[in-house]
Structure formats: C-alpha cells, structure tokens
C-alpha cells in the first residue's frame, strides 16, 4: 500500500471580520496517497481555495487555522513560519489560475525557475540556469534556451502556465497544489496543460491536489474527489464512483446543472435553486437543506459522513439516495 503524501484532518479556518468570526472552513478531512491526484470541487465560496492556502501556509494572520496537516507523515500546521516557508517551493508547491499575475514581470522565465533551485538546492547561478532550461524542456516549451531569456509578457498564456509548472516542479515537491490551473486558458491549451500535469505526475511521483469547479476535469484527471459545500465536505470518494453514483443531493444537482457534450440539447437544465448560505450566520444542521428537495426533519442536525460504498462517503442523512428512489 502506498503511503499518504498529504493528510488533512479536521481542518478549520476562521477569519476575524467586522461582523464577527467567519468560519469559512468547518472541519474537513482528506488525504492524498503518493503519486495520486485528489480534486477539491465546489462553487465559489465553498472553501476549496482556503483549504489549499491553509495547506500551503499562505493564509493571512487574520485567519485562525485548526486541525492537523501532515506532509509525508510530518505535522506541519504547527511549524513556525520560517519552517513553513522552507517547505514552500521545496516539498510543497502551488500553481495558480492566472499565470500572468503570479509571474514576476521583471524577471525572465529562466530566472524565475532558477530562483527556486538556488534557494532550496543551493545551486550556483550557472548550474541553476542550466537546470532551469532543462525544466522548461520538461514542460515542453519549444526552444527552451531562448524562451528562458524571455519575460512573461513575451509568452502566451499557455506558455506562462508551463513556466509556472516548471517553477513549481523544479525542486521535485512531494505535493503540488494546482488551484484552477487552466480556468483562464482556452480549451485546447487547457487540454495540453492537464495532459502535461498527468504526465509529470506519473514521471515524478508527485501528488497533486487539484482545485477545480469543473466536473469534466475531475472525470478526466482525478483519482479521488472531495465535493465541498459551504465550508464542509459534502461527499468524498473515488472520482469515477462519485460521478457515476453521487450520493449527496448537492453533487446530484451540480451534475444536472452543467450542460454536457453528450447530454440532451435544448431541455431545461436541472438547477439547484436558491443560494449558498451566509457563513456568518450558517443554518443549523445540514448546510444544503434550504436548497435540497429531499429535506426532512432530521436535516436540522448536522449529518456525519456516512459510508455509502468502498471509500465513498456522503454527508447526507438520506444517503444512500436509493432509499428515495425506492420510496418514489
């Protein structure tokens, strides 16, 4: 059995705001086996990006983080900031949605990739540059030596995201967090970048935490999926199983709301009516209940994650949903 590269237990994040404490992440747990991809999915405000920033240790001081985060078995949530900083770029790396704003416009692509190698691996300038060019080649940038001397504005969006990936993977991190890495890219470029990530993961054994809102991306690229809603895990399990037999009503609703290339045309899309609850004043019990067609009295108590299949759990009192279909 492979070991766990990343293990997150009861992670909670609270921001102090003018309106009082805002608990944007309310105790989530998941883990990534070495060399696997786990996707965090959900809509704006579900807490998926906050979870990834908490793992990276990049949340602002106004955030209170509770719970445990283990990287290769080592507890890192309690580490002093200086120790956390050393992990970033070395064992833990992250790529973001918008490669233009996350690259420094004043440095060449090669310099930015080389920086991580000089900082974490102590390579000298010449060796680091050489290694950086090799990394740019590894992420399939044509004419890597020439591109290494160019600045971000001289590169296309897809090329910039490749540079970001080269930077992130330069020090062979154990875990790569990819936060909507292709959302800003065109669909053909997105396909190239996701295929590249899969290939690099297979080659290096790096585990990937993929943050996305796109269930199609989950289907094609994730081993496991964590569906998040309003700061909690709604459903977790093997990606193929969760997408084929979702057991949380929110997952069912999400799958019905997204038009598909192989779905019916012109029909009305199933929609999840209403809006996400205000986390400053969250409802008692299940947070999805106000939008849920299956709501019953017990939904006023917080649902635990029920086992609904091998490695598959859903936070719904009515799971497995087969009960509802049989009763109907």
């Amino acid at each position, binding site marked *: 059995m492979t070991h766990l590269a990343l293990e997150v237990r009861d992670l909670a994040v609270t921001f102090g705001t003018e309106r009082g404490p805002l608990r944007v992440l309310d105790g989530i747990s998941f883990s990534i086996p070495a060399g696997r991809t786990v996707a965090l999915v959900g*809509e*704006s405000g579900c807490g998926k990006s906050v979870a990834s920033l908490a793992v990276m240790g990049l949340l602002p001081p106004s955030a209170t983080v509770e719970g445990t985060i283990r990287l290769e078995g080592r507890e890192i949530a309690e580490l002093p900031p200086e120790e956390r900083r050393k992990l970033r770029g070395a064992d833990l790396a992250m790529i973001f949605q918008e490669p233009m704003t996350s690259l420094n416009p004043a440095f060449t692509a090669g310099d930015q990739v080389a920086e991580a190698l000089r900082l974490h691996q102590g390579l000298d300038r010449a060796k680091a540059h050489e290694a950086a060019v090799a990394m740019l080649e590894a992420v399939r940038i044509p004419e890597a030596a020439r591109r290494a001397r160019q600045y971000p504005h001289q590169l*296309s*969006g*897809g*090329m910039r995201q490749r540079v970001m990936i080269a930077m992130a993977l330069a020090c062979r991190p154990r875990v790569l967090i990819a936060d909507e890495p292709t959302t800003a890219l*065109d*669909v*053909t*470029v*997105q*396909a*190239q970048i*996701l*295929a590249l990530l899969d290939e690099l993961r297979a080659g290096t054994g790096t585990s990937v935490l993929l943050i996305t*809102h*796109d*269930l*199609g*991306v*989950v*289907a*094609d*690229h994730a081993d496991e999926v964590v569906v998040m809603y309003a700061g909690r895990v709604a459903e977790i399990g093997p990606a193929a199983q969760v997408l*084929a*037999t*979702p057991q949380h*009503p929110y997952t*069912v*609703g*999400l*799958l*019905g*709301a*997204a*038009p*598909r*290339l*192989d*779905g*019916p*045309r*012109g029909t*009305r*899309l*199933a*929609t*999840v*009516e*209403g*809006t996400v609850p205000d986390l400053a004043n969250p409802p008692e019990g299940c947070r999805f209940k106000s939008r849920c*067609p*299956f709501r019953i009295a017990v939904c006023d108590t917080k649902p635990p994650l029920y086992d609904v299949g091998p490695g598959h759990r859903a936070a719904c009192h009515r799971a497995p*949903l*087969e009960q*509802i*279909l049989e009763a*109907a």
Partner: protein
Amino acid sequence: MSAAPLLQLDGVVRHFPVRDSLGRRRGAVRAVDGVSLTVGEGEVLAVVGESGCGKSTLGRLALRLDEPDAGSVRFAGTDLRAMPPAALRQQRRHMQMIFQDPYASLDPRMTVGQAVAEPLRLHGIVPRAGERARVQELLSRVGLRPEHADRWPHEFSGGQRQRIAIARALASGPRLIVGDEPVSALDVSVQAQVINLLQDLIREFRLAFMLISHDLAVVRHVADRVVVMYLGRIVEEGPAEHVFATPRHPYTRALLASVPGAGGKGAPLQGDLPSPISPPAACRFHTRCPHVQAICREQDPPLVAGATAATPTHRAACHFQDVLPAAPPATEHPAGDRLARLQAFFAPKPDMGNAA
C-alpha cells in the same frame, strides 16, 4: 427560421492597426477577416472559438458598436453603416448586449430600478408615470422581486446581477440580443438558472440571439446554429446538431476533443495559436492541423458544404472535409436512469422569488 434574417453580415472585415512606439503603422491585427452570417428571429446563433479568434469583435460589429473596415451589417434589411446617426439611435432600442462580467456592466451609482429604467427613458418607451410598474414587471420576469428596484448593484450576487443586466437589456423591447459570454463568469448551478431564463426569454419574445461563447457544452445546449471561428475567419458553420455530431473541420474536432469530461478523445492540439497579425497563408489552420497536405499551404479553402455533408447548410472551410477519417462517435453517455430520476426532484420551479 424566417425567410429574411433579422441580422445579416456580409464579408465583414475589421483590422486593428498595430503601431510602433513612433506611431508608425506596423501591420494590423486581423480580428475579423471576411465573415458572413445571419441570425433569424427566435434563433440562437452561437459564435465559438478561442481567445483572439475575433468572436467578440464580431459581436460588437453586429451591433455597430464598432465600424467594419469593409462589408455590410444589415438589421431588418437596412444597412446600419448607411444609417444617419439619429436613425441609428432609434434603431438601437431593438439591439441590445449582455456582457460577461455583471460586476463591471452595471453602474454602481444607479439603483437597480434606475439601471433598468434608463433604456425606457432613453427611447421614450413608457410615460414616467408607468415607469416604475414596467421596471417591476421586468424584474419579476427575470426572477427578481419588484422591491429589488430600490437596491444597489453591490447588494446582489453575480447571478442576480446578470439577471439585472438581462432585465435592462429587455427593457427597450429588443429584437436582437448579443450575449458575449453571458454565463461564463457564473458558478455552474447559477449558470444553469441563467441559461434556463435566457432560453425562456428567447422563446417568449422571439429574440434573435447571438451567443458568443468559448464553452462548447453550453453552446451545444442552447444554440440552433453554430459558427466556429479561427483567426478571424469562419472555419465551420451549420445546424448545432450536425456540427456537434459530425464536425467537418479538423479545428472543430480538436475543440470538441479538448472539452474535459468528453473522454479525452484523441491527442490535444499541438502548439499555440498563430499571431492574428500575420496569420498563416492559405488555410489558416494548416500549422496545427493533423491532416495537413501540400494544398493546405497553397490554397485557401472556401467555406462550402462538401459532398458528404448531411445538409447543404453545414459548411466547412477544409479541402478534405469529405475525406477526413470518421470523427470518433459522440459518446452517448446519458446521465443514467438513477441520476436522471434523482435530478427530476430538482426540476426548476417557476422563475420567481429568491433566485440566485
């Protein structure tokens, strides 16, 4: 589709000059480079393509928010270019636009009621006395509450703001609406609500709707006809069912194969989009085409229906459209009985009240 199209573009060209630091002309971005299309009443025409293909410029040209360098734009049979400014202003009440970002498209210093009333006033559509009632009626129609008229844009979510933008676009009683990525910035559950609303409105008001989008799944869901653009030109057009089931241009096939969740059919398209300042000669797709032959570098393929096209309205600009290897069959992958039955419980209720 009615006999005379409401909107008709013929050979429309729009080039944006590129100047160096001394202001000397150094070529041009050929954003739209000879495009002809029509949109009929009650018809949804989708324009798809990647960044820089010219689709947004085309939308602006269709509403004459921008001037073409060549070609004609006709609305209800009248050439908009020849129209005197006063008449054009009159005509504008019939042509509206919905933008991608509902945070940028509403004036933060106008209440929702003022924003929706502005087009009514501008075109003198209802007397002042009836204005408020009309605004409330429009808000109800897009799934908001009448009392929302007195609130400010910042009080609303993205989906609600897009509903406000739709109410504003509807206010003048348009016949044509251009939606430039109208649901792209929305979360998927909210997106579904807005798509359903747009489909209802298009049917109810027999709107001609030009949907500019990069999202092929959304386009397939709502469009009657599709135009696929690449580097300022149309490479394929036809009824949506045919374009999606049997794409006849290699670029359309590559786009479809790239959609996540479609099963990852085939290798992703290689390379980056060439510069629209100096697009490849002859067939513009030849630098990235897996089926490229010598003729593709020498002759520009016309946009025509090939011998094997299922209908003469399904046209492609490819020398080999009749002999391309059969496209991978569209994987029929219905959600499955279980999922469909569960989703039936989510059946949309009438668009009222606390819509997102």
